[in-house]
């Protein structure tokens, strides 16, 4: 592990200590909100949880390169780390978890993890896997047509590459050199289906066939992801075209609160990956590089704990939308 930790040196990436602590906070916040969600689920308060645990490195590392509210983002349901890096709060997340009226994504209409924010240019996400990719290509094309330097980040799990939509968007991105970054978080499983039954060959390698670069990166090394995403974002902003990033990671929880992963994977495998927990790894990096002390860590941990507790209390007490609100906003008015 020591190798990964020292390989990427934050100074060489142009990140200062403040950046690093922000990245750390975002990762930890995502984790703690996620953990809180499971507690609310066990308490019978949250009908459904879908986790980011284990993937915070991929998410925060990539999103930290974006300009919130300028670039367009098509996150997938695990991207709690992305949307919080862009500006969503613990409160927003827990309001969504509980389906409350104030849920900024959908007012309680959609499941948790179906992100949306007009202010943050997070384009409303849905459940059907893969549909975001052609849409992301369109948003990238709009930037290109107007000559703007906005970029688009489109995310999904490894299984999302199995849908035709992914390929159609890859092809379009390659044809028009679109400012589009595909971030594939390969967490080994699609619910129960393991990678060998899902992906032929290599996701990262496929980019070449479309005429643009593809990178495989250790998704549990937040700075490695940051680095490759920065290169991709810079390239896109310069008008040089798309990049595909395949971040190798692992889903540390069951697929969702409806899933029982003991049916299809061994406990030892999960334990093995716990050793590579991106947050633990980054903590060690910060400590070894003198960026964070044990005290500071405690302090940040406590702040986040408080933030999440307050957010949870707020969300639990927040009202639902009235039943009849279901009838509203079917059509937009001119």
């Amino acid at each position: 592990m020591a190798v990964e930790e020292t390989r990427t040196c934050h100074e060489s990436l142009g990140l200062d200590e403040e950046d690093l602590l922000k990245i750390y906070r975002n990762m930890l916040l995502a984790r703690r909100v996620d953990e809180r969600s499971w507690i609310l689920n066990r308490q019978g308060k949250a009908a459904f949880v879908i986790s980011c645990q284990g993937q915070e490195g991929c998410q925060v590392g990539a999103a930290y390169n974006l300009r919130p509210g300028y670039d367009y983002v098509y996150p997938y349901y695990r991207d709690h780390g992305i949307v919080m890096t862009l500006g969503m709060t613990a409160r927003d997340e827990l309001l969504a978890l509980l389906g409350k009226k104030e849920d900024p994504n959908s007012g309680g209409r959609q499941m948790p993890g179906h992100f949306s924010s007009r202010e943050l240019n997070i384009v409303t996400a849905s459940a059907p896997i893969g549909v975001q990719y052609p849409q992301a290509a369109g948003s990238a094309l709009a930037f290109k047509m107007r000559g703007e330097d906005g970029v688009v980040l489109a995310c999904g799990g490894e299984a999302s590459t199995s849908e035709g939509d992914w390929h159609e968007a890859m092809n379009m991105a390659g044809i028009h050199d679109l400012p589009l970054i595909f971030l594939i978080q390969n967490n080994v499983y699609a619910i129960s289906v393991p990678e060998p039954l899902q992906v032929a060959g290599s996701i990262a390698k496929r980019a070449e066939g479309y005429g643009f670069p593809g990178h495989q990166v250790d998704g549990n090394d937040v700075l490695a992801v940051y680095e490759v995403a920065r290169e991709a974002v810079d390239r896109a902003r310069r008008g040089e075209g798309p990049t595909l990033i395949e971040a190798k990671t692992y889903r540390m929880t069951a697929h969702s609160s409806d899933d029982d992963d003991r049916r299809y994977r061994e406990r030892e495998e999960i334990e093995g990956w716990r050793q590579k927990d991106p947050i633990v790894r980054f903590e060690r990096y910060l400590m070894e590089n003198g960026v964070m002390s044990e005290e500071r860590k405690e302090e940040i941990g406590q702040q986040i704990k408080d933030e999440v507790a307050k957010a949870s209390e707020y969300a639990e007490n927040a009202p639902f939308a009235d039943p009849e609100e279901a009838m509203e906003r079917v059509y937009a008015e001119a």
Partner: protein
Amino acid sequence: MTEKNLLQAIHDGLAEEMRSDDTVMVMGEDVGRAGGVFRVTQGLQEEFGPFRVMDTPLAESLIVGSAIGLSVNGMRPVAEIQFADFIPPAFDQIVSEAARFYYRSNGAWNVPITIRAPYGVVPGGALYHSQSVEAYFCNTPGLKVVAPTFPADAKAMIKSAIRDPNPVLFLEHKRTYRLIKEDVPDDDFEVPLSKARVHREGTDLTVVSYGLTLYTALQLAQKISDEEGIETEVVEPRTLYPLDRETILDSVKKTGKILVISEANLTGSVAGEIASIVAHEAFEWLDGPVMRLGAPDIPAAAFAKPMMDFFVPSAEKIESAMLELARY
């Protein structure tokens, strides 16, 4: 006879067909080791191996498309779409391809596949795990669309679907999976894919329904019989396409009134087709308006429970529609 719920009945139907015919196979997302997200295929991979019970990539067009290709090369695949909400990527393969092989090849190539898809509102399911998609498919000649509600029918009809030489879309209401239990015959009985079922005879009005709303309507038919002496004839189409028009028309000709209930968005639903057949062909027998009840015309059920409950045609709404029509 053994008491079974809908899940078990379908599971057993699949298992029996796989045992008696080597060419029958199951394919879809998570159908293998996990046994399906609803556990319909549980244990099948252990018994039949990783090919006959195959976890496919996450690609619905591929699932149905490759099922077609398997079927024309000697297999009888049962393809699972994990949630009916995710059937749109397979739309082309179903309506343009599977449904038309036989016709377009002038009878040379037929496509004996079954496509299973769990549908209907379920708590927490929200916009994309709740939809009733049947209307998308009930105007596609060459395709059969079935939606049995009760376990015994479901077991028999999954067998009929597998044995049918045509593509069959087999819809299962998720909320009835564990809710409805009944004795299911152990022997190999078949229910044809062409006959509606009259659950209850009556003289005052006809209710046509399927899925969860059928289950509710049956209870209410008993209730308004007990409480008000109103006798409702309850008809379940079982096969939604092509429809058993005769059974429906015979019933309406007897009662003079019809209420069609489904959980789908009202406008454009299969209920409209049934209503319009009646309005055309049983006009002379009608003693009241041809009524329909469905979900409101909004995209689908919301995640938040109050909005979700608002979406589903409730027992109250169903009862008052039945009473309104009976008293007309």
